[in-house]
């Protein structure tokens, strides 16, 4: 059986198994736990002690608490990944055996945060490197050891490139004559025009 929130594939066995654990928690508490899991997915700190307190009534063991967080993270992020609207998600979760109130509570939390979740997932998509900043300086060469009167302008450019994985910034520096710089600028403006036609 295919599910949209799993990317039109079968639902993983472990998710199916944990649905019954979710049903043990009351629907009101489940909505609050969802809010915490969403915080973690959006990059804010998740308050684990609150989740422990909310699950204490259902008498879940620590392994079950972690499984609950894992299955909610999967459902919410996978639904956002495949751009599933909250009604379809609710009906698919009910097909898997999640009670109606639980499913609607979960999907209401999902709906509130769907676009922020998608923005955050877009931001952490694969990216090889990122331009941090550009620094420049224009000089005027008066004279050199080869020629007494040079009188030419010169541009120094430094691109600070950030590596996403280790967070290191490398500086790539270059010096250009004014003609070369004009060519570079023209080409980059053409690329910018092309990008604007796509937006």
């Amino acid at each position, binding site marked *: 059986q295919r599910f949209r929130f799993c990317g039109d594939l079968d639902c993983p066995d472990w998710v199916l198994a944990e649905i019954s654990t979710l049903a043990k928690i009351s629907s009101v508490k489940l909505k609050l736990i969802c809010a915490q899991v969403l915080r973690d997915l959006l990059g804010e700190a998740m308050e684990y002690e609150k989740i422990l307190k909310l699950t204490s009534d259902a008498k879940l063991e620590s392994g079950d608490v972690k499984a609950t967080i894992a299955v909610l993270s999967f459902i919410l992020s996978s639904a956002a990944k495949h751009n599933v609207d909250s009604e379809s998600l609710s009906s698919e979760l009910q097909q898997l055996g999640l009670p109606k109130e639980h499913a609607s509570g979960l999907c209401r939390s999902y709906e509130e945060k769907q676009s922020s979740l998608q923005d955050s997932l877009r931001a952490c*998509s*694969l*990216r*090889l490197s990122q331009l941090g900043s550009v620094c420049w300086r224009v000089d005027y060469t008066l004279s050199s050891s080869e020629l007494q009167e040079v009188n030419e302008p010169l541009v120094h450019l430094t691109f600070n490139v950030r590596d996403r*994985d280790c967070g290191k910034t490398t500086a790539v520096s270059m010096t250009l004559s004014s003609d070369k710089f004009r060519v570079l600028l023209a*080409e980059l403006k053409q*690329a910018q025009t*092309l990008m604007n036609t*796509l937006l």
Partner: protein
Amino acid sequence: MLLVLSAEHRAHLGCLPRAGGAAVGELGRLALEQLRRGAAPRACEAAARKLNIDVDTIQHGVEGLAYLLTESSKLMISEIDFQDSIHVLGFSDELNKSLLQLYLDNRKEIRSILGELAPRLPSYHSLEWRLDVQLASRSLRQQIKPAVTMKLHLNQNEDQTAQVLQTDPATLLHLIQQLEQALGEMKTNHCRRIVRNMK
């Protein structure tokens, strides 16, 4: 298979009968801790003071015991072979019995520790991917060139490396086909026969 104990090893183990029954238990425990966590000179000094024996002798005794246990566990020698191998040390029956018990009780754990010492090739950690379409370049406008960019994260002895790969969809399909063929090999009669015999 019998263990052949070198003269030096025999000399190191020679301190055991002098130490007495309870001490052998203590030295055994120290030997196991050394295998689990590495040498602990302070623990040896404490044992030396308690048993009123010279620190070096204790150290040698612990190391000798550890080596005896690892060699026996490595080769998975039977009870009889173990008894015959230590018989050459000329210990009392009681001491031989405690050594045998020490070996049998801890054999499984020592084997699992030894198993982790084998060298490992880089193993798969995760794969990030991205599907792009090249629309234009500096030399050619009005293009449509799809490409899949992948970042393969590998783990080697707690070292994380990443490899960036790029491919066009045709090569990607070929890659998937080859990997599916490799998985399919497990279902052939030849592989099934070998797997059955290994179990």
